[in-house]
């Protein structure tokens, strides 16, 4: 634990200025992730700027029929919002599937998608981790990989000593739903305000595993916008985990399905617990769209999406089970949504 300066400026603009001016500064939302990292020495900022009371705590209707959710809205508040429950049940379910009541009361909409990986080596400063300590290698390769990626990773077993290796997953449940819903991120940065598609927020490790997102230093998430998506009224979030509650996803599926008779008119599918990003299953969506709404077709689409999946061997059996588990979970989730459609 390293001492740091703490600031609670008067406005978001000031907060952005303060963080931009100090290269080793961070924003603080609910603190449920960052404070742990301060204690563990995973985060070692010189300045912490509290934005919890600066960004909006409102969820407002947008002109086109969507919702604009302020970054300070708590995970619990958003999950309980009647509009979210009716029009975007997948999001309410994803939020409620995350963490526990106390944490959800503190965690913010801005902080949740920016929470960092739960990779146990990332969280232990005595082990090698390219994400925490660029260039140090990746202790996860061949280690405890149960919660690690199978998608978006190289086809061959990664090199544990290479500086670009990272097989971590993004842990957020909420983010998986947002990826399926084509949400939009509102950002206030040193150069002013901008928006970007939520699906472009997170990035694969590429040659710099230390960066989880495309945000630059001083970029503050001010709100998340949910565009109108009528088909999302029939959507669901299925999280598979090692205990019934209060556990991160082994795999998860966010799905919205629009079925016309026996045909899939439209579909949104995103996967959690499987990649460095909330994984939008575009390949499966393509296979499904216009095709039959049958269990067989759902399985075929899942298999198409997972064709490039790469199990990570490791202690305790590795994570190869995630591939059949995902196939089964995607199939079951779509099947259940179809059954919901006909009943």
């Amino acid at each position, binding site marked *: *634990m*390293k*001492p740091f300066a703490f600031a609670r400026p008067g406005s978001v603009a000031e907060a952005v200025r303060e963080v931009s001016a100090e290269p080793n500064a961070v924003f603080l939302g609910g603190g449920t992730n960052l404070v742990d990292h301060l*204690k563990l*020495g995973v985060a070692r900022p010189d300045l912490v700027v509290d934005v919890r009371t600066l960004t909006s705590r409102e969820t407002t209707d947008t002109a086109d029929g969507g919702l604009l959710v302020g970054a300070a809205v708590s995970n619990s508040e958003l999950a309980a919002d009647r509009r979210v429950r009716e029009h975007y049940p997948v999001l309410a379910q994803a939020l409620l599937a995350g963490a526990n009541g106390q944490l959800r009361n503190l965690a913010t909409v801005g902080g949740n998608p920016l929470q960092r990986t*739960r990779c*146990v*080596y990332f*969280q*232990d400063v*005595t*082990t090698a981790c390219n994400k925490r300590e660029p260039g140090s290698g990746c*202790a996860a390769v*061949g*280690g*405890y990989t*149960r*919660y690690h990626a199978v998608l978006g990773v190289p086809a061959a077993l990664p090199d544990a000593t290479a500086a670009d290796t990272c097989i971590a997953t993004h842990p957020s449940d909420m983010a998986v739903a947002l990826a399926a819903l084509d949400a939009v991120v509102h950002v206030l940065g040193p150069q002013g305000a901008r928006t970007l598609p939520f699906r472009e927020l997170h990035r694969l490790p590429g040659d710099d595993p230390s960066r989880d997102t495309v945000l630059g230093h001083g970029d503050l998430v001010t709100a998340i916008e949910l565009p109108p998506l009528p088909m999302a009224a029939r959507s669901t979030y299925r999280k*598979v*985990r*090692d*205990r*019934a*509650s*209060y*556990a*991160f996803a*082994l795999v998860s599926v966010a799905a919205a399905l629009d079925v016309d008779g026996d045909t899939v008119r439209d579909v949104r599918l995103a996967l959690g617990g499987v990649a460095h990003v909330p994984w939008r299953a575009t390949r499966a969506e393509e296979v499904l769209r216009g095709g039959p709404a049958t269990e067989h077709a759902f399985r075929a689409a899942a298999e198409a999406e997972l064709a490039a999946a790469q199990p990570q061997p490791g*202690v*305790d*059996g590795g994570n190869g*089970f995630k591939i*059949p*588990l995902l196939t*089964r*979970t995607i*199939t*079951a989730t779509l099947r259940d949504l179809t059954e919901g459609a006909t009943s």
Partner: protein
Amino acid sequence: MTDLLEPRAMGRDLVRRDGVQKVRGTATYAYETPVESPAFCHPVQATVARGRITGIDTEAAEALDGVLAVLTSENAERLASTDDAELAVLQSPDVAFRGQVVGVVVAETSELARQGADLVVVTYAEQEHDSALTVDHPGLYAPEKVNPSYDTDVVQGDVDAELAASAVVVSHTYATAMVHNNPLEPHASTALWDGSSLTLWDSTQGVHPDRKAVCTVFGLEEEQVRVVCPYVGGGFGSKGTPHANVVLVTMAARALPGRPVKLALTRQQMFSLAGYRTPTIQRMQLGADRDGRIRALTLDVVEQTSRIKEFAEQTGVPARMMYTANARRTTHRLAALDVPVPSWFRAPGECPGMFGPEVAMDELAHELGIDPIELRVRNDPERDPETGQPWSSRHLVECLREGAERFGWAGRDPRPGVRREGRWLVGTGVASSVYPTMRQAQSTADVRFEDGRYVVEIGAADLGTGAWTVLPQIAADALGVDVDDVEVRIGDTRYPIASVAGGSSGTNTWGSAIAVAAREFRGKFGTDPRDGDEASGQVDQADTDDEHATYAFGAQFVEARVDVDTGEVRVPRLLGVFACGRILNPRTARSQFIGGMTMGLSMALHENSVWDPRIGQVANHDLAEYHVTVNADVGDVQAHWLDEEDPYVNVMGAKGIGEIGIVGTAAAVSNAVWHATGVRVRELPVTLDRLLTALP
């Protein structure tokens, strides 16, 4: 045989005496002890699994404003005894496991201490380490004894001949995971040296054994040391003997005479410094006749200990007495590895040791087409098969029968994998439980008449189990007075010596001492004592029965549901029936039973300290990643008990109940999962990846 006390207060459903303080937060735990301007410690831990320290740079830490002392093996005091290598803290530059204490920083605040610890730079000459347990580890050896003093190997009869003569032989390898006790309250202490005397507020399962260990390590007389511990936030065995943290805080405080020093381990540190249960590998054979009579039973156990200190979990021991068999072999082999020191964990021996055998019984029942309850009934021995002694009382069969009745076992379809309710595959399972009834050799109680009330003092411990509440009930009946007229004081070495709260022996031992003290008191002062009259009593060794085999028994029933798509396991029903002698307080007893069963469920489905042998460390060393069963995992948990009076165990007629609940539960869960899915999981925990490929 003893004359049982007449139960008036005993058996009553009295509320916890310490309940209000705990709920209001006024019960002070070791770390919260109100002291003047305390200093705080943070340990520095080894980052290699084996090696030798070549240099320690403490300069940056010492330069920090507010750091008061930095102790390492280079400047720490030499301890009087280093016989217990786990407690030989900062005595040498050798590193025996990753996470071992190599230094401590003492500072004005806990944050500064932690920062200082981060700044200490230790360099090592790293040596190759060996930390992976395997069934054929080349270093396997037979320990001299297994805990606490059982024979390592026991062979009775001609195993090979009986196996050959068996109609059916079930032969499999079972395994239980490495698990950490993880009490909610971490290992924590406040230490204060005043001249040559030490006061230690320590979270411990026994103030007297704790003091004894500290005295040995530091070469002190008992009069020099006072250990205080009124409340404990759980121990589950991990506070049964002191660990390195206790030595460390005591040393740190000695470096700052007159200043109280506090140390609480972080959760991560607890995974290397506070003990754990060894993983076990159990090779098991059961040979039986067609009618289910067991001819041969073998259980060969492989487990680990640390290279620096032996701890031999007595996993094979319960199989020696549980069922009849014409021939039997139980053995233990250990691998001494570069790992943290294993230690006591709720129901050491019995808990892991009833997993393999009780799943094997289920497998045998299936092979033979006999109901699993019936199979156990047919093999219920009349006498202890190992010693030939009669049982003081054994009501396993009654537990199984009553449990079957309450659970709705009758008419159960024995076929696996055939029941489906919506997305769930449904099954039920059963397993037996056992736990020895033990009494420790030493405990003394004082009874004094004070302001019209009876004050009983004994240096016992309440881990949240109920000693504060139950001991007054025993004292009241022993004195023949109303329980409200009795005050019991525990948790301080100022009170007479008491044994550890462990082995489910606390109430048994301390209650026996209280009964003797009460008898002494009445003998001396009659029923009309004067203020200040006082008598003392010790556990009456003459009263100990060594002609009977004394055990508590039980049976757990489980309904398991397995998600047909994902393999996720849910346990909506968990029911146990126990025969544990007299139940002294149904309220506190129930919480022990259901707590034990819940911990067994946790062991069955979740708990798994994932060992990373490359670095020699538990990878998932915090409570977010090391899963302990949460509320949502627990459905209807019921504990019932038989009215059992056992005149041989003690004057209360009571057996220990703290541990038996965890025993057997994991086997019952695995058996139920098999019944639901047809998949036999022989290795704990039962996670979905172990079921997935076999699901439809």
